[in-house]
């Protein structure tokens, strides 16, 4: 493991940001558009301005509540092999959502995503070694909106054993997905014990607002014990100060407010310091999630999360590139690496391009590889005697090659990372075998995986049972 995280900020600077956020919460407050939330805040000692809906948080109150945030967050897979707890088992690599479009798997053209796409994506995520968490990647243009949550979770869980997350828009959606979970798990208790569906939401809207409808969903989820993740999405220059320090102060205040609400609903509910920080390009206003600032800000968020003793996670490497080109490569390489080195426990990077608007099949495979490399860095190096290799250094001495030593033989399959997509062929061989670029090689791998069996798919009887239970609300044929 890495001996230590890269600290973007000094202890004093972290303290400064923390205190600045407390000041914002106390003096400016949060506009809370949800009545139940306002009541909850009021009941626990916040000052609520009934005219404006603004809620101010006394410093002592924030200090008291932030101390009860649990220190870990557990993701359950449909199969326990894929359970992952952050920060302990991190960094966890996740896909990102929820894109309206895909680049068609056959012709590469951009179009709306369908159930068939999501089914393929679930299959791929299940098989790709670099990806730990499946946050549903796309919308479904062929499913009615009010049944999106149920259908997307059904399609995803059917093919994928890893923990799954999706958006939830109505109370009915909650009932549906809990019922689906129970049906898959084989009972209410089984699902309560291992709730393998997660709910991501944006109840917090920058700047300093807690909205109405999604907040009802959050309160509902917390009460029902469904794990949820409250996103903080500051857009520097538009909905947050343009400077990174100012963005961190604002985002941190928003993180505290929404997660304190969650604790007030049910104490010790697990939370994640979960964010999507990005800058706005001052030349044209573009949402610049591929900017290196996202990586820098995630380093700051991760460090603040450590200060509060909570796990951290969020988007890093959400590229602005329009295809799997070099821009996609460096935007998806640099920010995630910075964020991981800064201690981000869950790195959401896989699958989407064009500022979260489009899913790309080859990109998913490339991102899995990036994920594996990031984890490799995190793993660091071991210094036991065998790895120090003093004996073999002595034996070989000056001159000579290490390639035929026992030591090399012993380590050859594990000491290095073998990329699947990156090419190391000679020029001639590359030329003769079709001179495929990264995107083309990745697409080949996509087809390879999809051509194989998926041993983890629902068995026909489980599938039949689910389809019978939800006969009037499952719209999908995949």
């Amino acid at each position, binding site marked *: 493991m890495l001996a230590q995280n890269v600290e973007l900020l000094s202890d004093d600077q972290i303290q400064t940001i923390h205190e600045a956020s407390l000041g914002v919460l106390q003096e400016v407050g949060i506009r809370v558009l949800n009545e139940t939330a306002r009541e909850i805040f009021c009941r626990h000692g916040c000052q609520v301005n009934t005219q404006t809906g603004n809620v101010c948080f006394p410093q002592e109150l924030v200090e008291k509540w932030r101390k009860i945030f649990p220190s870990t967050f557990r993701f359950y897979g449909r199969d326990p092999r894929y359970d992952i707890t952050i920060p302990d088992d991190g960094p966890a690599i996740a896909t990102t959502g929820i894109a*309206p*479009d895909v680049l068609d798997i056959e012709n590469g053209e951009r179009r*709306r995503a369908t159930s068939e796409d999501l089914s393929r994506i679930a299959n791929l995520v299940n098989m790709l070694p670099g990806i730990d968490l499946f946050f549903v990647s796309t*919308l479904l*243009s062929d499913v009615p*909106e009010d049944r999106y949550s149920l259908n997307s979770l059904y399609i995803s869980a059917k093919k994928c054993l890893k923990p799954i997350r999706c958006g939830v828009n109505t109370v009915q959606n909650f009932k549906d997905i809990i019922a689906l979970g129970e049906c898959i798990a084989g009972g209410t208790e089984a699902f309560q014990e291992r709730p393998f569906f997660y709910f991501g939401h944006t109840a917090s*809207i920058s700047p300093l607002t807690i*909205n109405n409808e999604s907040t009802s969903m959050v309160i509902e989820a917390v009460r029902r014990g469904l794990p949820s993740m409250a996103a903080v999405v500051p*857009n520097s*220059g*538009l*909905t947050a100060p343009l400077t990174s320090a100012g963005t961190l102060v604002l985002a941190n205040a928003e993180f505290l407010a929404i997660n304190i609400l969650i604790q007030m609903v049910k104490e010790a509910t697990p939370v994640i310091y979960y964010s999507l920080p990005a800058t706005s390009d*001052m*030349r*044209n*206003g*573009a*949402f610049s999630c591929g900017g290196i600032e996202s990586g820098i800000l995630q380093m700051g968020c991760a460090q603040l999360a450590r200060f509060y003793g909570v796990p951290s996670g969020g988007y890093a490497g959400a590229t602005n590139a329009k295809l799997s080109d070099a821009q996609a490569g460096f935007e998806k390489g640099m920010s995630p690496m910075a964020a991981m080195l800064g201690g981000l426990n869950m790195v959401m990077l896989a699958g989407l391009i064009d*500022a979260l*608007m489009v899913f790309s099949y080859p990109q998913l495979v490339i991102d899995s590889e990036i994920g594996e490399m990031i984890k490799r860095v995190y793993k660091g190096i071991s210094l036991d005697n065998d790895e120090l290799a003093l004996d073999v250094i002595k034996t070989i001495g000056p001159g000579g090659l290490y390639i035929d030593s026992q030591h090399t033989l012993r380590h050859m399959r594990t000491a290095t990372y073998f990329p699947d997509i990156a090419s190391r062929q000679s020029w001639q061989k590359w030329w003769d075998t079709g001179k495929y670029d990264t995107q083309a090689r990745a697409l080949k791998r996509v087809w390879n995986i999809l051509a194989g069996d998926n041993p983890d798919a629902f068995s026909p009887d489980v599938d039949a049972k689910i389809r019978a239970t939800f006969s009037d609300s499952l719209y999908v044929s995949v």
Partner: protein
Amino acid sequence: MADLNAISNTLIKGDAGNLTSQVKAALDEGTAASEILNKALIPGMDVVGERMENGDMFIPEVLMSAKAMSAALGILKPLLTDEESKSAGRIIIGTVKGDLHDIGKNLVAMMLESAGFEVVNLGVDIAPEAFVEAVKEHQPNLIGLSALLTTTMTQMQKTVDALKESGLRGQVKILVGGAPVTEKFAQEIGADGYAPDAGSAGKLARSLT
């Protein structure tokens, strides 16, 4: 003789304080309000527009110039004829029903204001009927619809239809925008224009009035 060039430059710099004193001084010297408007301020804003397009001026600078412009207009307006002080047009803008994304819409509203439009910003989650009511109330030349969700894009169609049904469609031009919206979609639903970003939204609006 007032230095109209200097006034233009102050406007381009976005310095509202200096601009208003320069405009007042020019008036005191006897320069006609219409001359200040047509020979200093409007050419100044043209330069701002050009520089933004070339990437030489950033959006916050453009907005500062726009604020300076409106401060200067505040002084000139009482001295101009109605015809001379006419705004570029009135536009109602809002995010459609079920959609809470308003960052892009607000940016478009600011840019339209700086392009000389009078903007009525209705906010988010605006139902087709509410757009119809707003058109009746404000009698705009243009209406701008924003949607960031594919699921709420259908509300754009519904809003266009509602305007048709209420017999108001003929009196307003409809612009649409938002990340998932395309030119093609705009045509399909019978809107009059689409712009991919705030800079081009101003140009589009001008071309339609």
